[in-house]
């Protein structure tokens, strides 16, 4: 009787531990058919997307050998901070040496540093870092306002829909990505500049005041957006900002 109990116990323990053991992930199931020496980004870096949604473009990376030729069948794995998910999280490069993945940055606004890595034949790890930006509600609103009111002067790039006025201005405005200048200004200073115009801070009169056009909430949203996209990253930005730590 007792022996029976013991066998039952041992068998059930074995069953439970087998069930608890981590199932092998699909990543390790993939056998690389090729090995490269370098990993480069083809497209999909530096994108902006709303939190909770998949980034507009997939992230595409390419594995090259030491001659710079594309490597087919190399294993690439993608990693990111908590909340970021990749579809697929890993895979083998196609005939042009590329692997494409759809990125969801999760539900928290911020700048995310993503890494892709592959191994060389000598099992040495090769890494590629890219950066993506997730816009929360506030930053998304700021982005819309930037498009409507600011970008024509502050963004030097013209688009088919909108000709940039940047080159026509005698005193050049600061593009919103210009972290070197904008990060030195406090939120209060930026608010004053947007609300009361350039002369309020002894800057160019070409910058008009927006206090009577934009609401306080809208100006806050604009600043939250500027803080998030600045390069180098701003110490004032809210949310996950990898470079602060």
């Amino acid at each position, binding site marked *: 009787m007792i022996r029976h109990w013991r066998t039952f116990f041992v068998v059930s323990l074995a069953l439970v531990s087998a069930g608890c053991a981590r199932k092998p992930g699909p990543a390790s199931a993939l056998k690389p058919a090729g090995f490269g020496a370098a990993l480069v980004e083809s497209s999909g870096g530096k994108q902006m997307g*709303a*939190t*909770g*949604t*998949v980034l*507009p473009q997939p992230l595409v990376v390419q594995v090259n050998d030491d001659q710079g030729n594309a490597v087919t069948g190399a294993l690439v794995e993608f990693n990111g*901070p*908590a*909340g970021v998910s990749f579809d697929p999280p890993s895979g083998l490069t196609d005939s042009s040496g590329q692997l494409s993945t759809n990125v969801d940055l999760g*539900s*928290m*606004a911020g700048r995310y540093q993503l890494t892709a890595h592959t191994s060389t034949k000598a099992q040495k790890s090769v890494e590629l870092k890219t950066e993506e930006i997730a816009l*929360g*509600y*506030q930053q*998304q*609103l700021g982005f*819309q*306002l930037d498009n*409507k*009111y600011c970008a*024509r*002067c502050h963004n030097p790039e013209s688009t*088919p*829909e*909108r*000709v940039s*006025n940047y080159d*026509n*201005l005698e005193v050049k405005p600061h593009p919103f990505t210009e972290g070197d200048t904008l990060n030195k200004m406090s939120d209060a200073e930026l608010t004053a500049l947007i609300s009361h115009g350039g002369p309020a801070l002894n800057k*160019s*009169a*070409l910058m*008009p*005041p*927006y*206090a*009577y*056009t934009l609401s306080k*909430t809208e100006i*806050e*949203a604009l600043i*939250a957006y500027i803080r998030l996209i600045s390069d180098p990253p701003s110490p004032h930005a*809210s*949310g*996950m900002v990898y470079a*602060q730590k």
Partner: protein
Amino acid sequence: MQSSENKLSSLWQTLFGHPVRAFGVVSLLLLIALAIAPAKNYFSEWRHYQKQYLALIRGRGEAVTLQRHFHDGIQQIWLPQFGVVDRCTTCHAGLKEASLADVSTQPFRQHPVIPHTLDQFGCVMCHRGQGPATTVEEAHRSTLAWEQPILPARYVQSSCGQCHRAPLTGTPQLNLGRNLLGRYGCVHCHTVKLPDGSAIQPTDDPPSLQHIADKTTREWIYAWLKDPQAYAVTATMPNFKLSDPDARDISAFVISSSTPLARDTAPAPKNQKTPDPTAGASLYGESFCSSCHAVQNAAGNVVGGDVGPELTRVGTKVKREWLRAWLRNPRVYDSGTAMPHYRFTDPQLSLLTSFLGNKTDSDFLANVHLDATTPEQIAHGKLLVTEYGCASCHEINGIKKPDNFAPELTRIGSKPLTQIIFLPGMTHALPDYIAAKIRQPRSFGAALKMPQFSLAPAQVDALTTALLALTDRAHDLPLALTVRAKPPSNYQPAGKAGQLMADMACFTCHAINGRGGDLAPDLTWEGSSVQRPWLLAFLKNPGTLRPALIRRMPRFNISDDDAKELTDYIMTVYQTPAFDRDSMPDSGYPPAQVEQGRQLFYSKYACQSCHIVDTKVDKGYIGPTLTQVGSRLTAPWIYHWLKDPQAMRPGAIEPNRNMNDDDARALTAFLMMQKSSGKQGAKK
């Protein structure tokens, strides 16, 4: 058997053999039973999270403040007006703590900044889920008793749409989704009633097929039915996945049901020489056809507007004589078309007809070989047209528009999961069902009639978001708690001018009194804004006001009488009640005031950053050129515009400068002196 019975009886003896011992054992059992409830409470999930939260804040700089904000026990937000009881903040303890901005672990994250506060709206209004639940599982996922799981973050804008009927700047996805419901014609088949009782109206204007044989061939219809996007990548017509014989029979029926249109009889003049293709291209450009029509260029990019159909392969589609008649006056074929009547001359018609007619693609019809139509094919085609509900969108001779052809979607956002048949392997949640249904309707059954739309993933998400907003809550909220959209306007200008405006399709681009497009400025108060001679000249020959714009007012070649008629109507009817057009003079301002205005223009207000007054010095490229503004605008309009641009035209991007009266008057004086050279000469 015997031994176990013995064991039991001996156990009974040990426990209850003696009355005192029995009493002790029973008391002990009772005590344990009584302790279960408090123990369950003590070991509950939410207490575990509260302990974790306390451990998290203990190590932080702002520990004292955070500790003071923290309340032990179950927390609850009760909003009787919405029927909301939320206990989410029991575990989500840090939602209001700005100092937790860097914490990424749930459930302790700070809530991102939004326009509403937690105390006013609670959590489930936006995130759905079960507010009163106190376990993770019951609060977030659907259970047998409760159907509503947490809404995935990608659709969260749908919750804004429950109360906000008008578009919001902060919800681009919801706005796009609502727009697509009309633009892709979803609401032709599916009725979507809004809480105010009105229904969403389609905006895609599918063509009538009553005279289709005049316009195109049976072969083109066949190929189009088989794959609309092969003809035009931007086509909104969905793919019905028709078999070859079905497409053959429908094309046979559609052609046979078409009646010839009483055409205007002006014959096409015999052309001796073939028109110059470059002249055709430049007429296409000068007429700003690309403001509304797109063409796919060699690189595969679709360039141009999306008001009218894409014209990349139009020569393969339409018959030349139809095209010529259409260009001469589109309203003969389709009285309600958004296309303006351009009043082209005969040589211009020949140029454009030849230019567009040459936009062909021989591949598109290369494999289409149809035999002569038989009566059986026509009968079968008619049956198919009825079955597929073609007449929900298109007017077809002999077929009545079906009512409620597809299920009504008025409350789709609250559809009970028990009424949904999910596909194997699919997440059992409403958003996933709606998205899958939009993405691939026929995956739910090959016999389903809903066609395959070609939508980008972002468009599918946007449509899902817009549909998820149509909840019971959205419909049952008291109207006072909703933000209503402006009611759609069916404004119709009167008389001869009204006919002219319909003929030139002014409302395709301009809005007046709440009706019309947003490609061009709102004209509701145009009569207070501009001077009569300028308007008359502009209607005859529109010049460029904003050099940076790609879309511009085309020239409609209207007669002097028509231009005068329109000008009179606009000047008389489209006046603002805010001021009198003649309250300030057009000229004769004192030189000192003009000079003061010049200085204000260039220094204090730095208007030259966006506008040009002196073409030699100024470069501003955003606002309209002001070199001749004194001959174009009225003085009181300029004055009031300077005081508050958004009051004159809602949504204007010129910032409100909070200008004082003196400055506004001086700037008005300076700007009114910027006359067109012709007029200035005449004055002197």
